[in-house]
């Protein structure tokens, strides 16, 4: 523990779990407050203060939560991929903690994206599930997340598991674009391009503002939950090492 140094260098502050707990503690409460505030403003704009879309009518309001969650499902995977590189290349101790804390969040946001997507598609398709390109590749992404979480659970000792999960995550990062491309090809092969072009180039301001605010709200939500998750994971590992020491002392 680097208590002896007077001012731990930037890198140790970032990479040492003990230091991480110290500097991340004051961040949690303010972040929670900001996230709640942005959510309230976002909901106010999304549900009340914006007109319905001339094309899709009121169902555009579902888009305000579908698009952010769909975007988050890929953003969280990017965070995990960067952490995976951190684990494998620089053996950064906080990297695998971040990876482990992010995986369940990624899976949940992807599931939410599918949930809201099927509700959004219901009025136009007439059914909850249509094998269209984007929705199907989101579904495959969910399976990848669940696979990663299953791999985390299969390892008893998280330290050993981290490198394996990092490798799988990176392999996933390479394969996701391929999956996306092939699924789109498969979808268009069997049906004309789906009419649902939400993010058209020209989006009237009245739709853009709620969308951007909700974007910010969901991203902040992820950051807060990820930070809390990482703090919990660091302490869970300290518990494991303390238990090991307790056992040795008891021998």
């Amino acid at each position, binding site marked *: 523990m680097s208590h002896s140094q007077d001012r731990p260098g930037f890198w140790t502050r970032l990479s040492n779990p003990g230091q991480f707990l110290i500097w991340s503690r004051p961040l949690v409460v303010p972040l929670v407050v900001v996230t709640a505030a942005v959510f309230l403003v976002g909901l106010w704009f999304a549900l009340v203060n914006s007109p319905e879309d001339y094309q899709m009518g009121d169902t555009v309001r579902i888009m305000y939560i579908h698009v952010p969650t769909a975007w988050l499902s890929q953003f969280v995977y990017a965070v995990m991929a960067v952490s995976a590189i951190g684990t494998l290349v620089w053996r950064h101790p906080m990297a695998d903690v971040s990876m482990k804390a992010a995986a369940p969040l990624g899976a949940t946001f992807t599931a939410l994206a599918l949930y809201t997507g*099927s509700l959004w598609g219901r009025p136009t398709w007439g*059914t*909850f*599930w*249509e*094998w269209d390109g984007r929705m199907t590749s989101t*579904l*495959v992404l969910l*399976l990848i997340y*669940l*696979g990663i979480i*299953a791999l*985390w*659970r*299969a*390892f*008893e000792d998280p330290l050993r598991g981290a490198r394996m999960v990092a490798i799988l995550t990176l392999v996933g990062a390479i394969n996701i674009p391929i999956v996306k491309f092939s699924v789109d090809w*498969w*979808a268009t*092969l*069997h*049906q004309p391009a789906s009419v649902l072009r939400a993010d058209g180039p020209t989006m009237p301001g009245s739709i853009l503002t709620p969308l951007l605010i909700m974007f910010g709200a969901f991203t902040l939500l992820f950051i807060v939950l990820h930070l809390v998750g990482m703090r919990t994971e660091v302490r869970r590992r300290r518990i494991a090492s303390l238990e090991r020491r307790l056992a040795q002392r008891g021998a």
Partner: protein
Amino acid sequence: MRRAFAAIIVRDIRLALRAGSDALTLVLFFVMIGIVVPFAIGPDRVLLAQLAPAIVWIAAFLASLIGIDRVFRDDFEDGTLMLLRHGTLPMELVVLAKLIVHWLLTAFPLILATPVLAVLLAMDPGALWRTVISLILGTPGLAALGAIGAGITVSLRRGGLVAPVLVLPFAIPILIFGVGAIASGIGPDLTGSARLLLAAISLMLVAIAPFAAALAVRAGED
């Protein structure tokens, strides 16, 4: 006696839910098989709806076959099975307890996950309900066959791969009546009788599994 029976079930479930075990991955495997098929067949909803009962049952069938090896493997390797021979519970009841745990950890989550597949495979609610019923009736039989296969191959070092192959032929009737109980094709509606036959097969298998598997386990350590 009952305390020992409950102790085995509680311990095995607790172990399965802790980290370091892959109990819930079978559900993932089940859902994945269901999802993969439309990629091969194509997203045509009418065709998918017709094939949905077969897809769901094949997925359940393969998922339960893969889960067989874990029924006795861990307990055999760390000596628990050897010590249970002299527990208060006869080996037959130990096997029954493990059979119940095996069903709870593999088939039960499968049945809970069936609606997910139903939505993906464009199943109508009626078909979904019949699928759930046929899975509830059929999976105990699969679990029983699995326990017998596990008992026979537990002493083999590479037994994990042999068991599914041994058990699969005996499980074909369950598959036939399982799918039959959902949609019996163009002819007269035979789903009712298929359901009864499925239940009969399952009951018979669950009845003989403890004795057959206990015999195999007891002989296994010789």
